[in-house]
């Protein structure tokens, strides 16, 4: 079953195209990533799906049902926005109570769900008692996640769920998102982090300047656009020119003062090359196999690097 279908959706602001004929479809149970730099149109696409913005043209279907241009997709969708969009001067618990109330969750049911959610998200009860404005970035994110889970939605849409978080907190969030997915929720997220898309998503759409450049699993994308694997050798600078000569059969490439790149080779070649160099008295300090990354995919698709800090 398709959870979401976006067909030929376009959107312009003041004459400039922000979304250009976007088409993609997402299966139930996926973790689907929209990967692209800032300004690519990720938030615009998501908000069109949610009904906050009108589309100029195109069709959107949720679980097979066509959605009119300005229909808020209530109940089925949980939304974790880019900014937290909680009530800052209410406590986390009040935020949860409020939204649960608006969704018509009964008090007894609320307690059950709340316990489950805060255990699941690892939220301390004391944190819930504080005003949201007093929480740290990671804590707010968790509370925001909790409020979008309180009505038990089938699809979770998260706009840059880990932007601005510490790397370790980010990893914890990945685990959370994966376990939400194991619970049966379809997850759609946007990100401009390569590793996030790579490690978390079952499929990725690469978006740039409002256009979908390619869609596939991370492996498929890397195979198709990532280029070859390569072997990187670290060698003392004074031996570098010598080594380049000895390796001339492998089309060596000098990457830096003490690194040589051999494209198309993998770990199987390591003993052979080590022998070749050590016989001439050149020691390799380190071998590294570099696999193509989504970074390479993005460079090959756009000619630019996708910069993430």
């Amino acid at each position: 079953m398709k959870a979401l279908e976006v067909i030929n959706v376009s959107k312009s602001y003041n004459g400039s195209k922000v979304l250009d004929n976007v088409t993609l479809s997402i299966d139930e149970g996926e973790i689907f990533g929209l990967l692209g730099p800032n300004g690519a149109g990720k938030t615009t696409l998501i908000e069109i799906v949610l009904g906050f913005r009108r589309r100029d043209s195109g069709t959107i279907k949720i679980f097979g049902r066509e959605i009119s241009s300005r229909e808020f997709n209530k109940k089925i969708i949980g939304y974790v926005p880019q900014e937290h969009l909680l009530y800052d001067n209410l406590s986390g618990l009040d935020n949860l109570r409020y939204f649960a109330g608006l969704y018509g969750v009964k008090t007894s049911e609320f307690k059950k769900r709340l316990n489950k959610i805060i255990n699941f998200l690892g939220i301390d009860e004391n944190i819930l008692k504080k005003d949201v404005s007093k929480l740290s970035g990671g804590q707010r994110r968790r509370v925001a996640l909790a409020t979008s889970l309180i009505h038990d939605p089938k699809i979770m849409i998260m706009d840059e769920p880990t932007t601005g978080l510490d790397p370790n907190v980010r990893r914890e969030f990945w685990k959370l998102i994966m376990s939400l997915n194991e619970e049966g929720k379809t997850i759609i997220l946007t990100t401009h982090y390569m590793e996030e898309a790579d490690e978390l998503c079952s499929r990725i759409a690469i978006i740039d300047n409002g256009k979908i450049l390619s869609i596939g699993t991370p492996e498929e994308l890397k195979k198709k656009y990532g280029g070859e694997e390569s072997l990187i050798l670290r060698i003392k600078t004074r031996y570098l020119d010598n080594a380049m000569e000895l390796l001339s059969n492998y089309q060596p490439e000098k990457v830096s003062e003490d690194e040589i790149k051999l494209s198309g080779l993998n770990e199987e070649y390591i003993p052979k090359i080590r022998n070749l160099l050590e016989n001439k008295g050149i020691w390799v300090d380190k071998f590294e196999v570099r696999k193509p990354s989504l970074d390479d995919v993005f460079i090959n698709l756009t000619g630019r690097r996708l910069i993430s800090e």
Partner: protein
Amino acid sequence: MKRIFYIAKYEMKMLFKTKEVLFWNIAFPIILMLLFTAIFGGGNTIVINVGIYDQDNTQISNTIIDIFNQTNVTNIVLIQNNETLYQKLSQHELDAYIIIPKGLGRNVTSGYQAILNIYIDNSDPNIADISKGIIKSIIDGFNNKTRGIYEKFIEGVGNFNKTMIEHMRAYAETLKPLFKPVKGTEKVEYKEFILTGIIGYGFLFSSMVTATASIVNERKEGTLKRLLLTPLKPIEILVGKTFSALFNTLIYTFLVLAIGIPLLQPKIHLNIPDLIIIVVLGSLSGIVIGLLISAIFRTTEGAQGFAIIIGIFLQWFIGIWFPLEMLPSYLRSLSNYIPMTYALNVVREILLYGDSIIMHIQETIYLTLFVIILYGIGGIILSRLLKTIEV
């Protein structure tokens, strides 16, 4: 229905957690009220014209006239007959007049308390307040002197029986002033005027501006998006916001009375049920205007700014700070188009003159219709807004 309750509840909770809101909505108007009373309600450098009509012509009545003559804040006009009294009154030459009735001297000398009828011209509430204060303090002075005599007498003579002492004590409070308005000038004092005016202030700020802010803030913070993703209907948002602004105004009104009554000691008729009805109507007319403003403006800053400007502007035209009769007639006709003018007027009629809401059924119906019609329009505009504006 339950969802409306949730909106109202948490909206209120947020409102009362914001210190700025508490200040501007509650503390500020009360401070204004005290400030205005201090500026316009007091003052004692004025000489007042007091007419005294001595119908008694005894030594006691002459003493009373002497005492008034000796103070330099009163200008005594002796009146010989009713004709001169009415003439002077009709020309507003007297700020007050005192009638010393026949038999007062006899009452005082035989140890009975004597009542002095004092009539105050209330056409100018400030002057009336001053006149009353001055006359009261002069009479208190007279009573103090006689009490002094009485106490010396007790000391000097010693043992008296109980009834004798009671008799003497009555003599100590010789003159009891009874203040009455001069007929045809039954105007209120400024403190009562301002206390009720401050209730009307709530229609603009606790109601109208608060209602605008309640939508504007949701748009600004982006939380409106979250609300729209819940099963709420636009009309429920409208009603929920209305209830919270309405409760806010009722709490405000209650606080104004709870603080204003002990501080200003106004003479008012606390007809709570009728007061609540008219405050609800006045508040709702403010709220619905506020909600419309929040829906009409495309930018949040525009909406918020406009609501505040309208509030600041309207406060001079609905009769909060001074009687509308003081406005030039072309401005007064503007007041007639503002529903809150009617609401505040009925608030005054109820609190100051003891009217009931039934006596103002016309204004009540007018306000109710206004509220219903504007909510109709507001409902349509708001649901259209939610469909056309990118939140």
